[in-house]
């Protein structure tokens, strides 16, 4: 007896019928996500036998996981690198350029200051600027992965993005704190 169907093993790009690239058509991803969930979602199986309900739950979970992974650029990049057998080494490789680290410190200080002053306007501004920086890193990723196929260099950009991801979280929780 096989444990799961063959389709269940396919990678997320194939699952969503999209080319395995960093730059993807998000609208198409959304559309295919809905088509797939319409097929597999547990709500479609509540009145059916337990075996079908169980399979539906596994599939719906997988489709959600795939959607989450492909939707967020950093997760999509990580996943694509994994498919190419490249480890992003986010936990082990902490060597970053000095100017990048300096810039990160400036960001942190900016967020902390805005938090102390309870100034959500400044926080908003930082947020906007941050998004621009993130966007330019994403453009680098597209260049490195889709055009140059330089995956090790792309892994370096993902490590940088990880720092920005943490900053986004910090800004979010700063907003929350100012709200309280």
């Amino acid at each position: 007896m096989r444990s799961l169907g063959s389709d269940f093993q396919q990678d997320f790009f194939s699952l969503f019928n999209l080319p395995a690239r960093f730059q993807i058509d998000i609208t198409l991803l959304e559309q295919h996500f809905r088509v797939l969930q319409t097929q597999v979602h547990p709500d479609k199986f509540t009145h059916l036998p337990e075996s079908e309900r169980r399979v539906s739950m596994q599939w719906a979970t997988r489709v959600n996981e795939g959607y989450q992974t492909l939707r967020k650029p950093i997760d999509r990049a990580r996943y694509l690198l994994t498919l190419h057998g490249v480890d992003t080494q986010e936990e082990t490789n902490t060597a970053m350029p000095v100017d990048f680290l300096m810039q990160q410190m400036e960001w942190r200080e900016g967020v902390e200051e805005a938090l102390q002053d309870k100034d959500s306007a400044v926080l908003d501004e930082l947020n906007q600027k941050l998004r621009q920086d993130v966007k330019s890193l994403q453009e680098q990723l597209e260049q490195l992965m889709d055009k140059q196929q330089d995956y090790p260099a792309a892994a370096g950009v993902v490590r940088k993005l990880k720092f920005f991801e943490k900053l986004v979280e910090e800004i979010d929780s700063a907003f929350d704190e100012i709200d309280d």
Partner: protein
Amino acid sequence: MALLQISEPGLSAAPHQHRFAVGIDLGTTNSLVATVRNGVSLVLNNESGHALLPSVVRYTAEGSVQVGDAAQALQSEDPVNTIVSVKRFMGRGLADVGDVSNLPYRFVEASSADKTHGMLQLRTVAGVKSPVEVSAEILNVLRLRAEQSLGGDLVGVVITVPAYFDDAQRQATKDAAKLAGLNVLRLLNEPTAAAIAYGLDNASEGIYAVYDLGGGTFDISILKLSKGVFEVLATNGDSALGGDDFDHRIYCWLLEKNNLSALGAHDTRLLLTRARAAKEELTDHIETRITAILSNGEMIDTPLTQQDFYAMSKNLVGRTLQPIRRALRDAELAADEIKGVVMVGGSTRMPQVQRAVADFFKQEPLTNLDPDKVVALGAAIQANVLAGNRNEEDWLLLDVSPLSLGIEIMGGLTEKIIPRNSTIPTARAQEFTTYKDGQTAMSVHVVQGERELVSDCRSLARFELRGIPPMVAGAARIRVTYQIDADGLLSVSAREQSSDLESHIVVKPSYGLSDDEVARMLQDSTLYARDDMQSRALREQQVEAQQLLEAVGNAMEQDGETLLNEEARACIHAAIDVVRDTLQNNDQLAIKRAVAKLNEATLPFAQARMDKSVSHALTGHNISELDN
């Protein structure tokens, strides 16, 4: 090629009877039951024509239980035994409820020896009652109402819960349904239910916000409606903020105005009732008078203006704006990107609430559906679909889990495993390792919430994975998997990778009831006589078996030849025969076993069918069909 049948997994080939299903809005203040009849969703009234059942339960010394209007009428007279707003206690410990000095009840901390926390209980003249039991009484009245009105047993129900309910509160709700003899098809988030009722009615497209302020809970959900898909983008809220708090503000103000202190249970309930009446009066009057005679004969006669009421409740209204900002941030949207704001819950009738929402979103909120009924109506529509009574229009609901789920790591810190606003069902796994040489056990502490410190989050469960082979620190690979199902309920499993040692638990929150406790309550329950329960269980089992036979028969007819070899078909047919045979006798357990066997036998078939349906989904004309 039977492509159409494949792309409609729920469609049964054989025409079948309409299956009775209802939606229940189990509210803090009022509860309702609704169903879909001839394609129209409608609320079911009681014999006196009332739709709203006050969520009030009174226990008497003789052992009888009153629910609804009769209980509500006696709440000031018998405040200790008359439980109102029990929803606020669901899945909650005494410490969570906060200031209980103004509540007339005799609280009991749960006493199970193995638990550090427990759901609070209430001592009544009829004994100690759990909030789950009290809620079950309300559900039972609604079940009877529905069965009478529809003229048959219910296949299942959809029960709504506040979107911001945590795992403990959801589990408690499901337990209450079980206790009331209801088969829960789905726990549905209240704002999402409202969106269904609203969206299907108006055929809307775009991004909407649902602002749901009930008697005791507040939710905000941001939804994207497009092409028959309701996708919740983010949800937030406060599961301890609602109309009751507005009553309480007026009550405190009354005490101050009249120099009153330390009132008895009777007077407290009396003034709270009058406070609520004043609040409702101020919806369309600029002034009202609060009059009451206290038990010591003292006369209360205090005027209250709309202006004063707005002033004293300003920060309560303000507390609802904070979750809105958070939900918008999570959805990465600005207030002006919201196309419409749907108002749900009786408390949104307050003019100051409507004004605050209008100011925030810079548009008038939508109030054209009755805010008291819209949740039940939406739940009924979903129940109808889930029971297998499909209508022409096909739509899909994608909801999220409201709170992050994490695990305790070294130093009392939380490591998030499933972030908030993840579309459900979902699963995430994380690997952990041992921190001591030769460590053979690892304890897993499951927590829910956004804070960094474990002590600031809600503790859901603890369990231990034992028998890890002794290794040096850091060598073991323990994979912990969190799975949230479509009801928003969590199950957790842990597996040591090298030894394949597995420990699996369905999280019964520390605040929840154990299966044994639920079983005991069912036995003690006055809701059924014992014989009644057994014959009911048998009948349900028979129906389930028959439905299974029908469903498997249909599936075999559609795909048996193409997807299965002869051996596999023979295996399923053999299991079918066993179910048929056991159905001849009235042996519930035998039927149950045969059903389980058949389910097991058809699992690979179900997988093959799903594979086929998925691989067909993204090819051909299905996409363009969805676009229309």
